[in-house]
């Protein structure tokens, strides 16, 4: 496998951060904000997403039938359907259509070279259609302005919707001034656009064949739907007498009524527009007259067509020729693959790219494969170009889940990334450093896994050993030669502060202060003082790896806060959640850990105890990924009885507990609060904000997408600079606040490194005798 080394990856990412990051961030974050606002303003957005998802599930399920249905419909309309097995097959067919058309009717315009105009189509990018047609002596012009800029610049798309997003207006102006040498140099976007309109307008009027993609294909009427803003797709489809539409087979939907939710949602999710300028629904060949600009004095409406070619005859203008090329290229195999199938539901709106903090920093040239980019690209690239293409960029998905709420068809994009990472791990050759981590790694993975991934995936075992030997382990780990070795072998960047392991774990501290019995007494005393809730609850506080061995203080704070509100707590020594393993793509290990953890808390659940979790990513594993790892009843039982700590405190306050039992502010004490990405996806940011407000603080939430740390991601040598770039956006938002709190361990670590001060968990602020920063 010709994968880049860590240093090469770091260099590539640094280059993109410097050259393309600024332009990408400006546009992608803007589109994401608009999407967010439009979703919020759309009352039935959840119903729309659910409906769209259901239609796609059904369509992919019935795909072979739909292909036959669309073939019959298009043929009845007077067109042709060709199902292409792969890129070469599709390209050869399209070239043949162009050659046959020009041999029969001659070449339009002044030259003898057959010419094609195209509207934007990622599917034709996937098969490199332009190169294939050029090799056959066919002149191809992209008419979408973004695609045309790329064609002039000999560049590739950096975003599936805004392909030239990485090039600034000034750069386009320089490029065009050099290439086209205008009398007056181009400067404004309006000037550039006017020039493009005129230049491309000529190419369209002289073209022999128009090629479009299709956003959707309605099987039973043979209708292709094109969603655009410029109008070039309409011109490409209507002007030349021959129209070729190239679409992946997954674009098929059964009926016209199935199109409605997609028309309603695709522009909302892509750019935040309520609907796009042009939703072109053509059942070609259409009745629109062909336009021969070679004969400017001929009426475009043929003689007598007004009567004869009655629009209801169903076969369209007799001069028109239409070909629908349906591309397989791996999609049938994806449909058979239980994990990759969901990728086929994708409507290519780019919402996963726009909502992704890493994407906003590097764009699709970093977070993308041969053709596709953004979170869903891992599924597409693995399916159509193979796992190697996906392996190049798959690690850029940190599993933050920001894309989960953005995706209009509710694809679990982080899971697809986890699955492909797991498969990539398993396909690699064993490496020389395996011996280093073998002793630390009681995992269920086969050899060949990257040692760094194996190290982070087994962080619980590492942490346990380090805690047992602290503080010596901390001194050793900070020593210069050790940092060099850690970087070379495990890829841990030496610029990153390592966690400081505590000699006394949370579980040991809890036992040392008298365990469950003492906790029960403390809770009773608090209740007797009148601070308690009107609830008879008991809590198992989950000692996640970081809380147990590194950030023990927030664990103690959680225990104290719960007791002060009258709730007795237990802190048993529980297995890892599997979150660390999942983030490294070690699904078998995570699966085992999920089972062990469930078994370990089953009795507590049966006894009616609530599981309270401090680290949001561990709670997210229980609430999201466990659905795939545990039997349904076990998953539901744990999900229904597990809570984020501040969510739980909120519930206690709502049920009569007295906030004054906690450390309260003066009513208006400003603090900056950064929630955690996965916590936001679970809709658990609001309870923390509410608790802080109830307790006399005035929290302001940061709207930056992510802290950039994402567990192990920011430790990795190749991603350190990207992690800091993403983190700086958050740090800038919160740096003026006197107090900054964050729910995630790694969010707090990143902010502490960037702000150079302490960033505690909100519960540390709230706990009796709470700590101030």
């Amino acid at each position, binding site marked *: 496998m010709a994968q880049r080394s860590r240093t090469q990856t770091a260099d590539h990412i640094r280059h993109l951060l410097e050259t393309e990051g600024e332009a990408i961030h400006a546009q992608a974050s803007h589109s994401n904000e608009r999407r967010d606002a439009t979703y919020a303003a759309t009352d039935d957005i959840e119903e729309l997403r659910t409906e769209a998802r259901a239609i796609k599930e059904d369509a992919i399920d019935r795909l072979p039938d739909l292909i036959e249905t669309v073939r019959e419909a298009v043929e009845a309309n007077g067109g042709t359907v060709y199902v292409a097995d792969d890129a070469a097959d599709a390209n050869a067919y399209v070239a043949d259509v162009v050659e046959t058309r020009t041999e029969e009717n001659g070449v339009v315009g002044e030259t003898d070279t057959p010419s094609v105009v195209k509207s934007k189509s990622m599917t034709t990018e996937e098969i490199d259609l332009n190169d294939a047609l050029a090799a056959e002596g066919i002149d191809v012009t992209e008419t979408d302005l973004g695609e045309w800029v790329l064609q002039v610049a000999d560049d590739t798309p950096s975003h599936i919707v805004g392909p030239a997003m990485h090039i600034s207006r000034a750069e386009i102006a320089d490029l065009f001034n050099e290439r086209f040498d205008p009398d007056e140099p181009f400067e404004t976007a309006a000037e550039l656009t006017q020039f493009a309109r005129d230049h491309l307008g000529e190419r369209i009027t002289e073209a022999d064949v128009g090629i479009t993609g299709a956003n959707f294909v309605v099987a039973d009427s043979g209708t292709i739907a094109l969603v655009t803003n*410029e109008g070039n797709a309409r011109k490409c489809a209507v002007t030349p007498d021959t129209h070729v539409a190239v679409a992946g087979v997954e674009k098929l939907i059964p009926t016209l009524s199935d199109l409605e939710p997609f028309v309603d949602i695709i522009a909302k999710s892509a750019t935040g527009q309520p609907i796009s*300028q042009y939703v072109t629904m053509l059942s070609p060949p259409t009745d*629109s007259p062909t336009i021969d600009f070679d004969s400017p004095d001929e009426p475009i409406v043929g003689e007598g067509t007004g009567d004869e070619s009655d629009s209801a005859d169903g076969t369209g203008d007799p001069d028109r020729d239409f070909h629908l090329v349906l591309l397989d290229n791996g999609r049938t195999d994806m449909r058979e693959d239980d994990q990759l199938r969901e990728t086929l539901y994708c409507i290519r709106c780019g919402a996963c790219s726009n909502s992704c903090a890493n994407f906003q920093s590097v764009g699709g040239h970093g977070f993308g494969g041969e053709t596709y980019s953004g979170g869903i690209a891992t599924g597409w690239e693995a399916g159509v170009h193979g796992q190697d293409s996906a392996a190049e960029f798959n690690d850029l998905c940190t599993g933050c889940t920001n894309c989960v709420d953005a995706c209009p068809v509710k694809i679990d994009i982080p899971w697809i990334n986890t699955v492909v990472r797991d498969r990539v791990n398993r396909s690699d050759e064993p490496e020389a450093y395996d011996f280093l981590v073998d002793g630390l790694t009681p995992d269920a993975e086969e050899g060949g896994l990257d040692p760094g991934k194996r190290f982070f995936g087994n962080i619980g075992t590492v942490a346990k050993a380090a805690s047992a030997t602290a503080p010596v382990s901390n001194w050793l780990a900070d020593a210069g030669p050790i940092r060099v070795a850690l970087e070379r072998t495990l890829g841990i960047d030496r610029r990153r502060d390592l966690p400081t392991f505590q000699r006394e774990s949370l579980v040991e501290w809890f036992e040392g202060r008298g365990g469950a019995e003492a906790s029960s007494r403390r809770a009773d005393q608090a209740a007797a003082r009148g601070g308690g809730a009107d609830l008879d609850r008991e809590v198992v506080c989950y000692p996640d790896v970081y809380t147990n061995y590194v950030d023990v203080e927030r664990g103690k704070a959680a225990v104290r806060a719960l007791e002060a509100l009258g709730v007795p707590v237990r802190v048993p020594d529980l297995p890892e959640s599997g979150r660390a393993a999942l983030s490294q793509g070690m699904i078998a290990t995570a699966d085992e850990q999920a089972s062990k953890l469930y078994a370990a808390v089953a009795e507590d659940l049966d006894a009616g105890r609530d599981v309270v979790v401090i680290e949001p990513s561990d709670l997210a594993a229980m609430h999201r990924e466990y659905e795939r790892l545990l039997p349904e009843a076990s998953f539901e039982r744990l999900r229904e009885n597990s809570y984020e700590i501040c969510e739980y405190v909120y519930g206690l306050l709502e049920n009569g507990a007295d906030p004054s039992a906690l450390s309260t502010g003066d009513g208006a004490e400003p603090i900056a609060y950064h929630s955690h990405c996965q916590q936001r996806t679970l809709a658990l940011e609001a309870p923390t904000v509410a608790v802080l407000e109830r307790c006399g603080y005035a929290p302001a939430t940061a709207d930056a997408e992510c802290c950039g740390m994402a567990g192990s991601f920011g430790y990795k040598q190749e991603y350190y600079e990207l992690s800091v770039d993403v983190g700086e956006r958050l740090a800038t938002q919160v740096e003026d606040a006197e107090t900054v709190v964050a729910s995630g361990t790694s969010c707090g670590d990143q902010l502490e490194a960037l702000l150079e001060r302490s960033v505690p968990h909100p519960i540390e602020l709230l706990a009796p005798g709470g700590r101030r920063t």
Partner: protein
Amino acid sequence: MTVDTVGRFERALEGLEVGLERVSAADASERIERIVEEPAVGAPLPFEGVSLPAGVTTEPTAGDLEAARTGVTPVGFAVAEYGTVAVESTADGAEPISLYPDRHVAVVAESDVVPDLSAGFERLAEGFDAGRDSVVFATGRSATADMGDLVHGVHGPGDVDVIVLEDR
């Protein structure tokens, strides 16, 4: 109900910087004449008592189409919610006439303005059943941000006007 729907349509069009004018069928021709910039091309208007003004060329040549500043077409229906007009691909050239010139003047009967996208899809389905199975939902002006800033009128019309026939 209809009045509210047209009001909603008008507000949506305002947000898209598209003008809306309500006229009676009897006054339509004169009003269209005032709006169009010549040279103008058009597709015949199928509304009773409404005809295109003399300055609008029907059955245009390719040359007429290329030179035209304004294209006038009927639209099958309109969706108030989004300010959308449904341009049908008819044999008289409504699709290219609405697309090539800088300005599109869309003429719609008030009774064909439907409240929302669902109602629009019902109308669309009725049309499909009757063989009118190629339709463009056009909403506002052609636009692009690909050259680094939002610009209107890139390939399609940069100006759009809608005429609602109050008594049709």
